């Protein structure tokens, strides 16, 4: 008895000790704490559901109706940004048009994170009312108090039918901003030169402006003499360009809306490669009035010209840093064309490119951390992106006949001229290297694209 009770007591003591340990040690262990520090770099899977009131199949994109198909335009926009993996519209079997009718499981199983749904309905003569919702298909789950954050964006517009495509770009911008944190460039435009060559006739030169994706082109200038190097003013209202209409190079500025233009420089020799300062008050240009081509700045208010680079090398293709304090330019001062940077305050020059024997046509990304350039390697010209801090150097294109890279105002894409089917076309590449896309071909060779700033 005594032995048993003793043992019992000891057992009890051990038990109580264990219980104590259990009680006081378990709560901290009951919940498992995990730290995750890595993810994947992948395009966001998204589905854009055909808007109610519009055709579900917009694969034939040549018709006007198809071009005004909002879902198709958004799909194209997002897909070509490189940041999104847009679900093939053919695989969509459900067509909700508001956030209320969402079967979340269905979209989760379809493998998307977000969906865009919308509705188009008549709103008077020649007008339509368009509404859309951007929905996080994983957001419907309980997320604590007020957990209705599945609806990321919801808007309604009344527009002219002819503006449906522009509206679609606008919706793409909203979606892009919401999901990537950066402003979308789908409402931006691009200026470029079209050279139309007809047999037996002198070539015709056109300065055109279209949507960033090449749709809705407008001819701004028409000349039988070369037009070159269009450049957008920071406010997007003007374009500077080089015209040979007087048989020699001159730099003009044209108002995009009105078509009015004015002459800026007409020096002997080269007047080329205009570039607007970030504040819009100056142009950086290349002039050869001093002998060999050098970089100058021109005050647009006074037309006062200031030389920036000196020496006997050929310096060209100036491009402003976002802070306006320095310029990138191409120079052969090292023996072969390379990218240099000149400090406008003290004139100091530093070489920026070290990869290969030919780098040219550089410009800054909007954050000033990267520069995009044309890189020649083994006779192939491709667009390259160089990070100024890490020194990483990546080719964004691989077609080998690329020219004139111009960066989108949000830095997410680069447009360039290339050749396809025997003629010059425009193409875009995402700066993450995921996507390359050709813009619709124009009637002629397309050259020297210039991406507009954000247009309000």
């Amino acid at each position, binding site marked *: 008895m005594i032995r048993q009770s003793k043992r019992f007591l000891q057992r009890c003591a051990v038990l109580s000790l264990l219980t104590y340990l259990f009680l006081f040690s378990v709560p901290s262990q009951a919940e*498992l*704490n995990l730290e995750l520090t890595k993810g*994947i770099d992948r395009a966001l899977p998204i589905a854009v559901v055909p808007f109610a009131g519009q055709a579900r199949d917009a694969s034939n994109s040549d018709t006007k109706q198809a071009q005004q198909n909002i879902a198709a335009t958004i799909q194209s926009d997002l897909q070509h940004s490189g940041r999104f993996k847009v679900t093939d519209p053919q695989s969509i079997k459900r067509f909700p048009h508001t956030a209320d009718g969402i079967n979340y499981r269905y979209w989760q199983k379809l493998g998307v994170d977000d969906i865009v749904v919308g509705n188009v309905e008549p709103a008077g003569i020649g007008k339509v009312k368009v509404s859309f919702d951007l929905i996080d298909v994983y957001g419907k789950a309980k997320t604590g108090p007020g957990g209705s954050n599945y609806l990321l964006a919801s808007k309604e517009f009344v527009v002219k039918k002819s503006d449906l495509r522009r509206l679609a770009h606008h919706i793409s911008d909203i979606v892009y901003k919401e999901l990537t*944190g950066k402003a979308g460039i789908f409402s931006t435009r691009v200026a470029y030169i079209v050279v139309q060559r007809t047999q037996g006739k002198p070539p015709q030169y056109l300065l055109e402006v279209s949507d960033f994706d090449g749709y809705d082109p407008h001819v701004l200038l028409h000349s039988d003499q070369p037009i070159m190097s269009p450049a957008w003013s920071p406010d997007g209202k003007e374009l500077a360009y080089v015209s040979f209409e007087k048989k020699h190079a001159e730099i003009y500025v044209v108002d995009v809306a009105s078509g009015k233009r004015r002459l800026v420089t007409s020096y002997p020799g080269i007047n080329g490669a205009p570039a607007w300062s970030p504040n819009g008050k100056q142009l950086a240009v290349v002039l050869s009035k001093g002998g060999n081509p050098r970089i100058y700045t021109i005050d647009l208010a006074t037309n006062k010209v200031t030389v920036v680079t000196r020496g006997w090398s050929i310096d060209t293709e100036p491009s402003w840093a976002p802070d306006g304090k320095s310029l990138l330019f191409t120079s052969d001062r090292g023996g072969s064309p390379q990218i240099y940077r000149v400090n406008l305050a003290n004139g100091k020059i530093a070489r920026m490119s070290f990869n290969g024997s030919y780098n040219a046509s550089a410009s800054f990304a909007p954050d000033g951390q990267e520069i995009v350039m044309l890189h020649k390697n083994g006779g192939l010209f491709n667009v390259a992106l160089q990070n100024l801090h890490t020194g990483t150097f990546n080719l964004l294109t691989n077609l080998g006949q690329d020219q004139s890279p111009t960066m989108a105002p949000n830095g997410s894409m680069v447009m360039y001229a290339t050749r396809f089917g025997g003629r010059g076309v425009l193409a875009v590449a995402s700066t993450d290297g995921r996507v390359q896309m050709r813009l619709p071909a124009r009637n002629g060779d397309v050259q020297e694209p210039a991406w507009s700033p954000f247009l309000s």
Partner: protein
Amino acid sequence: MSFSVETKTSSYKLPLILAIMVHAILIWFIFTNVELAVPTPVAQKRQKPVDIVKAVAVNQAQVEDEIAKIKAGQQQKQQRQAAQQRKLQKLAQQAAQARAKEQARLKQLKAEQAKLQKLQAQKQRAAEKRLADLKKRQAAQQQSLAKLEKQQAVAATENAKQEALAKQQAAQAQQKKIAQQEAAKQAAEDKAATQARAQELQGVVNKYAVMIKQSIEQRWIIPDNINKDMSTKLQVRLAPGGTVVDVRVITSSGDTRLDRSARAAVFKASPLPVPSEPQMFDRFRVLNLTLRPEGVLTSST
């Protein structure tokens, strides 16, 4: 004193009674002669009185004769009676004397007897007393013996008790020691078992924790343009089998895109790899995840 009084009265009683009886008989004879002339059957029946009556009752004549004779004889008789009386008295006296003598003798005898008896009684008493004494002594002896025995017994039991106690204490001490050793051993074993179990559990937990981490990381699309120093804290509730039941943003990173990407990654990874054993699974019911987009998985395609 009483003895002497009794003796005096009894010494005159007998002769007196005898004299009265004789007189009575004679009177009765006188007055009953006639009637008794006819023998009665009853008289025949009586044997002894018949003898007495026969001798006296004859016939009337005889009776008168007799009476005369008697009357004659009465004087004689009276004389005789007187003599007799005197004789009787004398006899009585003698008898009384004898009786007294006898009584004295008897008395003596009695006394002797009493004496003897007394002596005997005394003897007996003495013997009894001796016996009693003896018995008493024996009893006493026995008592003392018993007492002694008792004492001895008590002592023995006491001894035994003490011994037993000592033994018990020793045994207890031994048991205690053994018990302590056992307890220590048990505790050590328990501890070792607990540690082993904990290690095993921890091993399993770690294994699955790594798998869960990988499973989510492989699905976590790090949003563009995200601050790498930010982190999102999620609380994930799992059902057995690893199905993600609920994901709560406990601490927002400040960028809803990061929060959402983390949450979507967890849901996409559902069901998460968890141990099937219920006890093991309990550790995975609630996961606190901190997602910090420090880098990108290089193996991902």
